[in-house]
C-alpha cells in the first residue's frame, strides 16, 4: 500500500470516528417505513370518528358532565384519544425494533451518548407540542390539532438532524411546510396528518434504506 492510499484511509477513518462519536447513525430506514404504515392504519381507523360517521365519545352520559366541569379527563373519554395513543405507541415500538436490529448488525451500542442526545433533542419540541395540543383540545380548537402535530414534529426533526443522519432535516422541512399549508385548510387535518406521518415517513424511510442499508 502506498503512502497516498494510507493517508486517504486514515482520513476516512477519522471522519468515520467523528460521525460515530457525535451522531446516532443506526436509525434504520425501515423504522421510517413501519412508523409510516402505523400512521396510515391509525388514520384509517380514526377516519369515521373524525368525520362524524361514528360517535367519537366513549361514554355519552359522562361526557356532558365532564364538559360542564371543564374536566381534563374528558379527553380520555374519546375514541380518538385512544386511537392516537395506540398509533403513537405501535409506531414507536416498530421503529425501535428495526433500529435495534440495525445497531446489533453494525455492532454499535443502542443506548449510547449519541442516542441519548438524539432522544433529548427530539423530545423537547415534541413535549412542548404535546402540552400545546392538549390545551388546544381543551379549548375545543380541534382544527389546529393536526397542523400542530405536523409543526412541532417538523421542528423536532430539524432539531434532531444535528444528532443523527443529516437527511432527516428534509423530512422535517416537509412536515413544517405541510403543517403550515394545513393551517389554511382546517377541517382536512386528518388527510394532511396521514400524508405527513404516513406517506412522507414511508418515502423517507425507503430512501434512507436504499441509500444506507441495501446490501
Amino acid at each position, binding site marked *: 500500500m502506498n*503512502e*497516498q492510499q494510507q*493517508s*486517504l484511509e*486514515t*482520513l476516512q*477513518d*477519522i*471522519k*468515520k*470516528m*467523528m460521525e*460515530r*462519536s*457525535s451522531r446516532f447513525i443506526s436509525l434504520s430506514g425501515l423504522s421510517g417505513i413501519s412508523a409510516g404504515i402505523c400512521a396510515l392504519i391509525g388514520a384509517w381507523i380514526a377516519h369515521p370518528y373524525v368525520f362524524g360517521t361514528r360517535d367519537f365519545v366513549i361514554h355519552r352520559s359522562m361526557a356532558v358532565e365532564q364538559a360542564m366541569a371543564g374536566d381534563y379527563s374528558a379527553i380520555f373519554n374519546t375514541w380518538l384519544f385512544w386511537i392516537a395513543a395506540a398509533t403513537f405507541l405501535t409506531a414507536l415500538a416498530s421503529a425501535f425494533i428495526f433500529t435495534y436490529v440495525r445497531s446489533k448488525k453494525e*455492532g454499535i*451500542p443502542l443506548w*449510547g*451518548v449519541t442516542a441519548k442526545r438524539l432522544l433529548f433533542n427530539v423530545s423537547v419540541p415534541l413535549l412542548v407540542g404535546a402540552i400545546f395540543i392538549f390545551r388546544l383540545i381543551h379549548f375545543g380548537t380541534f382544527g389546529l390539532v393536526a397542523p400542530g402535530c405536523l409543526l412541532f414534529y417538523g421542528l423536532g426533526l430539524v432539531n434532531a438532524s444535528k444528532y443523527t443522519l443529516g437527511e432527516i432535516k428534509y423530512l422535517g422541512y416537509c412536515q413544517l411546510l405541510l403543517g403550515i399549508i394545513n393551517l389554511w385548510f382546517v377541517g382536512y387535518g386528518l388527510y394532511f396528518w396521514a400524508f405527513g406521518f404516513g406517506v412522507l415517513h414511508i418515502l423517507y424511510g425507503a430512501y434512507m434504506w436504499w441509500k444506507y442499508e441495501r446490501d
Partner: protein
Amino acid sequence: MLNPIDNLNKLFDSRVRLGIMSALMVNDEVNFNDLKELLQITDGNLASHLKALEENSIIKVEKGFVGRKTNTTYSITKSGQKIFKAHIDALEKMIRATK
C-alpha cells in the same frame, strides 16, 4: 526541505489515538467508558494511549463522580486541537501530492 511528512505527528501514529482525537474534536468531552465502547478496546490499552496524549498536553483529564462511581472525562486542549488539525492537513497534502 518541504516534506509534508514532517508535519505528520508521531503522536497520532496509531488507530486508537486517531479514534480518541476524532471523538474529542467533535464532542466537548467524552468519558472513559464511552471511548472504550466507541473504540472497542480494553481498559488498559485505552488508558495507556490516553496517558500518552495527556502527557503531551494534547488532551486534559477531569476526574469526577457519578454517585459513588468514578467518572473520568477527557477533552481536547487548545494546543491539541491545533496539532491535530495540522496532522489532518498534512494527510490531505500527501493525498494531493500525486494528483
